[in-house]
């Protein structure tokens, strides 16, 4: 019988940034973490998934909404939880043993009990023999094991994990994931629930019993899927079909477009070179492919792949639906063209499909010297998105514009100008 451990009711998180309007990172999120489950929170960068995790931990207070922990309103750090960090966050000046003991320093245990508990954890997590080592003597995977041991040593009710495997190489990550799942399934840890934040679809499918998918600007829940493929082999048909359907959710219209207005402003972070590579690959695959396959071919994770797909879609090179991507006629033409023709096609598509270019050209043309500081455009974008995101978008537009020879940019002066400016040397 599962009980609810953490309940989030209509959580919204805004970051104030006067004099601009506040940025909404999370919008109206309701979510329950139940006992006996591993919950994966999956989303692209900027979807506020780490913020959501920190709200559960009590590290961040939401702007509005309610967080209940074991039925009581959360105030300060959530007592029943422990956390594992992407960067491990272990203290470099303490040995493995001291790091693990640090979590118990304020418990009611005596010094001997603490030592015993810490050693047990170190043993269980496979750090035997490394008790006296300093973190810098360990490999990345071993360091994260220290992170796990430290978190599990306090016997938390809920274990929160913030992208715990994304700082590790593929093999190490796989190994550590399997070990964690074994500990959980064999009930060797007293933890009642695990919440893992990730941007890796296969990781979410491998580990969790339930996948909550977030989308960005602002972060909100677009799907809550029960997963029966946890722990299965990657080639198992059930695993493959689960990964496929998650891709399907991520590429549906409602999951992608935040709102009509912001969709028109959206510029995916996709450098021209990478997007071109994607179009070429699709052409080689017969103009149509399954997104998980493409991700596999390009060795990309989905949140690196999706912006490229979105860019190809915006420029009219590709169509996406239900986890498949297909080149359009223009896309095929682009793939088959030579370098100079490609620039021409790109320019045509960008001018007709990306409204921002029209806007920028209009501004530049209205100026006598046909130039404008980049900052001006960044600040315009900042009306709607965070400064970092605005900067990224303008940078992407500059990248596209330079490639298509629509506009130019001078890094030293920070000026964007039109190609036909007379006094450009």
């Amino acid at each position, binding site marked *: 019988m599962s009980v609810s451990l953490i309940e989030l009711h209509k959580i919204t998180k805004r970051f104030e940034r006067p004099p601009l309007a506040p940025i909404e990172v999370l919008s109206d999120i309701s979510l329950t973490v139940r006992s006996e489950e591993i919950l994966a929170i999956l989303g692209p960068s900027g979807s506020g998934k780490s913020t959501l995790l920190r709200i559960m931990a009590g590290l961040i207070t939401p702007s509005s909404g309610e967080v209940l922990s074991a039925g009581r309103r959360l105030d300060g750090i959530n007592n029943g939880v422990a956390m594992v960090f992407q960067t491990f966050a272990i*203290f470099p000046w303490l040995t493995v043993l001291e790091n693990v003991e640090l979590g118990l320093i304020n418990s009611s245990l005596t010094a001997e009990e603490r030592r015993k508990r810490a050693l047990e954890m170190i043993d269980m997590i496979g750090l035997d023999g490394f008790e006296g080592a300093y973190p810098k003597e360990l490999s990345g995977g071993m360091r994260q094991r220290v992170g796990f041991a430290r978190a599990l040593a306090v016997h938390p009710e809920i274990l929160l994990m913030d992208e715990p495997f994304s700082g590790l190489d593929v093999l190490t990550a796989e190994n550590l994931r399997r070990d964690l799942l074994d500990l959980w399934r064999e009930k060797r840890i007293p933890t009642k629930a695990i919440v893992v934040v990730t941007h890796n679809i296969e990781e979410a499918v491998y580990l969790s019993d339930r996948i909550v998918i977030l989308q960005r600007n602002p972060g909100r829940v677009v799907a809550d899927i029960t997963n029966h493929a946890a722990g299965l082999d990657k080639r198992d048909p059930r695993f493959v079909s689960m990964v496929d359907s998650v891709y399907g959710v991520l590429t549906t219209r409602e999951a992608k477009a935040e709102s009509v207005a912001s969709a028109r402003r959206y510029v995916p972070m996709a450098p021209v070179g990478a997007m071109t590579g994607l179009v070429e690959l699709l052409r080689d695959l017969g103009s149509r492919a399954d997104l998980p396959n493409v991700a596999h071919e390009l060795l990309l994770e989905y949140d690196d792949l999706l912006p490229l797909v979105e860019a190809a879609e915006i420029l009219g090179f590709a169509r996406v639906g239900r986890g498949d991507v297909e080149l359009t006629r223009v896309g095929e033409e682009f793939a088959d063209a030579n370098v100079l023709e490609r620039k021409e096609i790109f320019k045509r598509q960008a001018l007709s499909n990306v409204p921002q270019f029209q806007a920028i050209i209009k501004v530049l043309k209205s100026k006598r010297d046909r130039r404008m500081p980049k900052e001006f455009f960044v600040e315009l974008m900042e009306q709607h998105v965070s400064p970092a995101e605005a900067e990224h978008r303008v940078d992407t537009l500059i990248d596209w514009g330079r490639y298509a020879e629509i506009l130019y940019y001078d890094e030293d002066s920070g000026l964007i100008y039109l190609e036909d400016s007379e006094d450009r040397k």
Partner: protein
Amino acid sequence: MTSLPYYVLRSVIRMVLAFLLSLAFTFVYGYIAAHNRVAEMVLIPLLDILQSVPVLGFLSVSVASLVSLFPGSILGYEIASILAIFTSQAWNMTFAFYQSLTSIPRDLREAASMLRLSKWQTFKYLELPYSIISLVWNGMMSFGGGWFFLAASETITVLGRDVQLPGIGSYMATAIRASSTSGLLAALVSMVAVIVVIDQIVWRPLVVWSRKFKVEMTASDEEPTSWVMELLKKSLLLSFLEDAFGPIGRFMAGYAERLRRGRRSGGRALRLISRVALICMDILIVGLLVRGAFWFVRGIWLLWSVLDIGDVLKVFYLGGLTLVRVMAAVFLGMLWTIPAGVKIGTTPRLRRFLQPVVQVLASFPANMFFPFVTVLYIRYHISMEIGSIPLMMLGTQWYLLFNVIGGAMSIPNDLNEASVVYGLRGIQRWTKFILPAIFPSVVTGGITAAGGAWNASIVAEVTSWGSTTLTATGLGSLISQATNSGDWAMIVLSISAMAAIVVGVNRLFWRRLYARAEEMRAM
């Protein structure tokens, strides 16, 4: 000369006391500034201003007030000397500590919260270890810089009275007055010996030990070494100390533990108390601000009644002259330190041998060299108007050299090889490759050197040998004359003017150059 060891000991004690005071100040001020928003808004700009006030200017002010506190005793002068050294060390160390505290990665802070570490535990396990490296480096540099002010503050002429504190600086001053070359040499030799010994038995081991607190998890190729540290590791002394003090430490820890548990039951009350305490602190800070503003206005009013606009204009004219000298000193310093520093920095063999030497030279109080130079000036009739520039350089060029060596060392080897492959040679090699690569380091060195030159101007624009005194027209000499004659209005005016000019030049020139350098460094 037999009393020299005793004098040296007195000086060292002064240095140690001043350093401990600086350290205590650093912890309290830096911690509050990093943890209290309201305090931060006041404390950090204030620190910035304090950093620009010439240290020797502080000295004259503090001597006058302290002497009146302890009439007829030398204690006031002792405290004033320690304060002078303190003011030369504390600001820079505090800044470093504050910056370390505010740059602790978010994940580590969150980990500490998730482990429910108390404030004290967070300080002990996270904040202090994280800032150790920066504290040791800045402490070492500040301690080295302190010798200059020690030498300057042991012989003070205030309000027309000469006061000598027993110490190596005053020993030297006496030798100068007696035109005794052997006395001078003895003082110089013992000074070098003290600097080298302290470096070897205190700072080197600390630097080696502090490596343990590096946050980057990769090992670097060039590890610093210390023979004292090696010795300590092998010796029985440490284990003896541990045996002796271990039980005491454990008892204290246990006691603290019990105290903490007792308090935990009253958590809510404690939280209330700490909240009230924080509010009280805010009120206190605002109160101090209001009071400070009041004193400021009153001071201006007082000044206005004594001085006229002509005085103000004169002070700024003299400030302009000193500014030219400071800039000339920095520029001339660059002329030789850039080629030399690049050579040393890119030649490992040379670096291993010369870097410790440069470090000792940087610590060596340059004002101890002044008399030798003065003798030359007198003999060859060189005007102090120009002659004071080399005097300023004596102390400050080492900062330039230091930074250039560091900059040259960090030039990526790939770039170096690329420049060779593409045949960059001669002038081009310098303008296209080396100078841009070390530019940020040169700017950093320039800022430090200029700051040092301003401080030095107070003693570098007036020097003497025997009964002859050489004076240059400038703000520095004006400050020392005003201090000698006890002209309060002029002291306050000239010191404020110097602080204002330093702040102004930093904001308008150095900061911009630095921002530009930072931009260049970013890839």
